């Protein structure tokens, strides 16, 4: 059982996760952000593997990826950075990115290195479900890595059930049919979507993402799902804050979370 699965055994609600792009704003920011997130009591992290053509992402994550690549971030370097801190931090980590860089690195080698540097899971939004099932499922299981898949309000029930069956950590609930960072406040459509998911009684926890940026969006995700992931809003803070710890503090203010309440 990986660290992420252990977390879900003990904590079942009000989970908070952050997404950030490795190598942004500076190439060495990766480890600083992870350590700051652990100190701040964030439950788990998605470490973005930057890609030149991030189709599902809005301008904020795109720009962070472009900057990170220009900073010299690569998968090789990311694994070295994670290796360096793996004994110092306990916060569960997921690697999130697009399939092409992973294929060039080699899927077997990628999974081995992800496992070796302590990652709990992988999110590759453009990896087709059938391809995962037929070609990589055994490999992921062998290295105790959890695959995480996205669902949207348009995903059919049949597909959600398939994803639930393939998953062993959580399901990433995309709040609306939109690229990252595009959403305003959540409304009735998100509410009914979240309730529809609840009613399905899935085996995996549901974590909401895309558009979590203030109290309203966070609370609505927390009330209906098991937790929330904040990405673009966090990257915006990283861009203006002097240090990652400060960026998390600023984000917590926007989300109106007291540090104490979180732990």
């Amino acid at each position: 059982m990986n660290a992420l699965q252990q977390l879900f055994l003990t904590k079942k609600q009000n989970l908070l996760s952050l997404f950030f792009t490795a190598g942004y704003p500076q190439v060495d920011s990766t480890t600083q952000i992870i350590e700051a997130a652990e100190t701040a009591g964030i439950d788990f992290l998605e470490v973005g593997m930057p890609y030149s053509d991030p189709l599902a992402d809005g301008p904020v994550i795109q720009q962070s990826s472009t900057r990170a690549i220009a900073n010299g971030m690569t998968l090789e370097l990311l694994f070295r950075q994670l290796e360096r801190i793996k004994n110092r931090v306990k916060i569960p980590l997921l690697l999130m990115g697009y399939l092409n860089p992973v294929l060039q690195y080699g899927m077997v080698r990628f999974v081995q290195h992800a496992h070796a540097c302590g990652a709990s899971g992988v999110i590759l939004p453009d990896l087709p479900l059938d391809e995962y099932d037929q070609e990589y499922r055994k490999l992921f299981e062998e290295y105790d890595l959890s695959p995480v898949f996205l669902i949207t309000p348009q995903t059919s029930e049949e597909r959600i059930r398939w994803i639930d069956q393939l998953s062993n950590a959580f399901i990433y609930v995309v709040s609306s049919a939109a690229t990252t960072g595009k959403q305003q406040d959540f409304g009735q459509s998100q509410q009914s979507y979240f309730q529809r998911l609840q009613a399905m009684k899935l085996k995996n926890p549901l974590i909401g993402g895309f558009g979590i940026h203030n109290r309203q969006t966070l609370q609505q995700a927390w009330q209906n799902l098991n937790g929330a992931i904040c990405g673009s809003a966090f990257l915006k803070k990283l861009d203006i804050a002097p240090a990652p710890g400060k960026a998390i503090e600023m984000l917590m203010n926007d989300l109106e979370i007291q540090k104490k309440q979180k732990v």
Partner: protein
Amino acid sequence: MTSNQKLFSEKHTTSSSEKVIKHNIPNERGFYGNFGGAYIPEMLYPNVDELRSNYRQILESDTFRQDFGLLLRDYVGRPTPLFYARNLSKKAGAKIYLKREDLCHTGAHKLNNVVGQALMAQHLGKRRIIAETGAGQHGVATATVCALLRIPCTVFMGSKDMARQKPNVMRMQMLGAKVIAVESGSQSLKDATNEAIRHWINHPADTYYLIGSTIGPHPYPDLVARLQSVISKEIKVQLLREEGTENPTHVIACAGGGSNAAGAFFHFIGNGKTRLIGTEAAGEGVDTKLTAATINSGKAGIIHGCKTLLMQTADGQVVEAHSVSAGLDYPGIGPLHAHLHQTGLAEFIPVTDTEALEAAMMLSREEGIIPALETAHALAALEKMAFKPTDVIVISLSGRGDKDLQTYQQYFTKP
């Protein structure tokens, strides 16, 4: 072979072992051998799936076939002539025919695809059309058909390309399309494509994404190839009349994303009689960084939702292509062509900027036809190949050269 490459080829054996019934048509999952598929985030899944589950049925329906046929005839101007190029034949020492796609409305083969997909959008009940464009040819074609069919149209174009291709921006605007400047990434075709896809993610219900080439997630490569296949269908009929055989010994076409080559090759693929030759834009040379010769310098990977050959760094970041011809300036190539290359069913030869420019002048002087720069890449193959007097060669003259006059002028008046 490195372990990476080995893994990659091993990984592919699953899909390649699946039955490929015909080499010009992908399997159920959208694979031509090892290439194709639909590598898309879940946000795109419903849009792409809707098209995938309906396109074959729509293409085969009587109303679609009738509407498409009439528009091809009366609006696009088909069939386009198959012209016996006497002077060029003498020069090459073989019979050379030119398939005159440059005589289509808007000046290139592009319109065949656009007419078909715009009708497809109507059949699917979509109310808006979006498209990406590089040099603006596909954007102009889309704006044209959308004006005709009264469909609101938005075209995404890199801001760099907008500055380079002002006349096409003006054409699109005159035709009533909204042109959106793309500022992300390299501000060219690849980023215009990303932005169009993002827009589609954000407007899934009412919008149809009209892709301009045989690229993108399944079913687009197949859909576009089928719509362009009218080119080789006509060649067969016309050649039978002229030469008493349906099958030329050679078909030559340029390939960027590959829609013109797909159309010109389609009915000859795997016939055992016709050598299919694609020409790629080598830019300054295949071994330089300034190239767009994807097949000759790219590696297998994923771009814009399909598995194919693409130009990328060792880390798998997509790199920018370079060619003097904006229409071939794309770092990937359609999965059909990657497959034809891998199986040897077609060969792809690189043609440099200079070779293409010289070939454009050659055709202008020999036959009185100024070709598009893209097309000039196909003509340049004549210089690189040896022919027998009995050979019958069809070259797809994919577009006319009006749009490239400035480039020609700069090159040929250079001191």
